[in-house]
């Protein structure tokens, strides 16, 4: 009695009931395909979110003012006694703050510092065309690299332009399309709230990320924007680029130290906020990881249901073929052969179902699902397939054992 013969018996048993076998297989197929595809969709969405975050700029810290916090300002003596009371005087971010951060000895992990002011929705016109730019940014040239906005046509503006407060501007793709259509915008003058700016470059298309159109943007030298649009007040934010991905945490603590000192903050309630791209990314990837696990768990339930389907069918098969089992035992089939045959039948059902489920999942993940490109996770394929075979063995063992344990005479008398 070799394994091959048992396999032959098992196949014969399955083929005797093609409809029943294929329906049982279908249950496992759906389970396996669901696990692989949902995990792939989860992974795909996770990756696309990660990519979106990376597009905001790598290794950057964004410092913005926070009005609820504050340092030991002039009102400390006002009887509030300590650092826990509400702040009445929170310091804004100033150009001097930004300059202080460029100190090479105090902040060795900082590569560049770009002070940012934003003018709120200035109306921009070129000829008859008019467009309200959602984000008009005044900054230094280092900003382009820090926030990952390369120029596609024309040039950047340079430090000279900043020093001379030249009214030059680099436009986003959406602004160019709104104002110029198919005309080449380089060298043309646009009027921003009545002030003429010369277009020197066009940003590479970034695509929309979520609600906001990342291409509806214009970037100009900081003093030019302050002069003509926002005034010489405080900064809206400071973008700090660290020297490398692993240096962002160091840069964050250096920046914190410098700003705490400058703003006179002694407690952990500062008047500014640092957004660390790396920690954001970590948080988001944790969240999407949970999401993926959730999807996988839902799919795993359908795999379990498929497994119960196998038990059910194998129980029916064993009951239906009790007499046949009796005959086989009467002519000398050992218990192991009967056990092997029914166990193999169950395993074949789940293996065939699992393999075709993998096939379906491979085809399914080639399509975009709800705007997300699924990414196959090899471990999920191995896991789903392994679990499906395991299910065959586990759920098949009860009916197979029942068949093998039957006494020949009991089985033969069964009707």
């Amino acid at each position, binding site marked *: 009695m070799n394994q091959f013969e048992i396999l032959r018996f098992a196949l014969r048993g399955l083929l005797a009931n093609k409809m029943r076998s294929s329906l049982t297989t279908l249950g496992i197929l759906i389970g396996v395909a669901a696990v692989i595809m949902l995990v792939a969709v989860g992974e795909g969405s996770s990756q696309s979110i990660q990519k979106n975050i990376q597009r905001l700029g790598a290794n950057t810290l964004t410092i913005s003012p926070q009005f609820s916090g504050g340092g030991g300002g002039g009102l400390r003596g006002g009887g509030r006694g300590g650092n826990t009371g509400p702040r009445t005087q929170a310091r804004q971010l100033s150009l001097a703050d930004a300059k202080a951060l460029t100190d090479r000895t105090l902040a060795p992990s900082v590569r560049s510092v770009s002070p940012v002011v934003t003018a709120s929705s200035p109306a921009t016109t070129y000829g008859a065309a008019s467009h309200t730019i959602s984000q008009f940014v005044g900054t230094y040239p280092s900003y382009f690299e820090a926030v990952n906005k390369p120029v596609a046509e024309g040039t950047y503006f340079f430090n000279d332009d900043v020093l001379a407060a030249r009214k030059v501007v680099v436009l986003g793709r959406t602004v160019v399309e709104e104002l110029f259509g198919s005309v080449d915008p380089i060298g043309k003058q646009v009027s921003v709230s009545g002030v003429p700016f010369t277009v020197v470059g066009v940003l590479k298309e970034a695509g929309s990320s979520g609600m906001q159109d990342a291409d509806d943007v214009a970037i100009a030298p900081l003093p030019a924007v302050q002069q003509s649009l926002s005034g010489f007040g405080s900064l809206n934010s400071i973008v700090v680029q660290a020297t490398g991905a692993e240096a962002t945490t160091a840069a964050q603590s250096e920046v914190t130290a410098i700003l705490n000192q400058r703003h006179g903050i002694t407690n952990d309630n500062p008047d500014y906020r640092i957004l660390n791209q790396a920690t954001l990314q970590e948080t988001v990837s944790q969240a999407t990881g949970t999401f993926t696990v959730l999807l996988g768990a839902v799919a795993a339930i359908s795999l379990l249901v498929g497994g119960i389907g196998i038990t059910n069918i194998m129980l029916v098969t064993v009951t239906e073929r009790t007499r046949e089992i*009796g005959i*086989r*035992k009467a*002519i*000398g*089939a*050992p*218990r192991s*052969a009967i056990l092997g045959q029914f166990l193999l039948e169950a395993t074949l059902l789940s293996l065939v179902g699992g393999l075709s489920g993998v096939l379906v999942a491979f085809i399914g993940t080639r399509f975009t699902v709800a705007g997300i490109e699924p990414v196959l996770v090899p471990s999920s394929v191995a896991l789903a397939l392994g679990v499906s075979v395991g299910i065959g063995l586990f759920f098949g063992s009860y009916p197979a054992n029942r068949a093998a344990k039957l006494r020949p005479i009991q089985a*033969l008398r069964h009707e």
Partner: protein
Amino acid sequence: MSAPPVLRVRGLVKEYGEGDARVRALRGVDLDIERGDYVAIMGASGSGKSTLMNILGCLDVPSSGTYEIDGSDVGRLDERRLAILRNRRVGFVFQSFNLIPRMSALANVELPLVYGGIGQAERRARALAALEQVGLTDRVHHEPNQLSGGQQQRVAVARALVTAPALLLADEPTGNLDTASTEDVLEILDRLSVSGRTIVLITHENDVAARAKRVIRLVDGAVVEDRRQAPVDGPPPRLSGHDRADQDRADQDRADQDRADQDRADQGPAGQEPAEPGPANRDSAEDGAAAR
């Protein structure tokens, strides 16, 4: 005789059920069967003959008593050795054929060899030889539902023979057959007996029993009669008087009818097994004729 008997049964008791519902099917049976013997076990229904047969075929276990095949005590064998014993030492023919459906005659006959671990080529050769022995060379690829009752029983006999077992057990092998098929099967058994095979057969028909070398009668689970009709190492009684065969065949139908009447009389009010051929048997008789 110096060699141990093929079968040795001592004090065999089998009880079913518990308490008030307890039924004693066998009440201490002692039996020795020599190699080459042809034994018919007779008895009314409920006399325990099928129970005895199932125990002899290792399909059931006795409540008490010992049972040896070829000198080895069956009660002490574990499940695995028991399976080997059923496979190699015992060939079993059932009243209801018990072929596996949707498997060709050849595959059915090969099955014991598969479980015996015989290679494919030898398996096929031996199965074909066994089918030839029962005269079914032209039906090897037919499935059970394409065969008449008699043909199915002959396949079953071939399956029992194919492992060359020491012992051939037949539980009313002709019980579901028409007269012509009965004759075919009994002739095969006679031939096997001549070739030295040990045969134990259950029947409640006198002229089936008449062909055996030894007749044992069971009543209420105990042996009441043990009659030898021919010597162990001689041919079965039927074949020693060869000339009677043709006439018997001619008288078969009338004999059947007589036998049925007699059986009814024998069994009295307790007899419940239908002895006369019912409508189903008539159908299969016609089928058998058509298949020929």
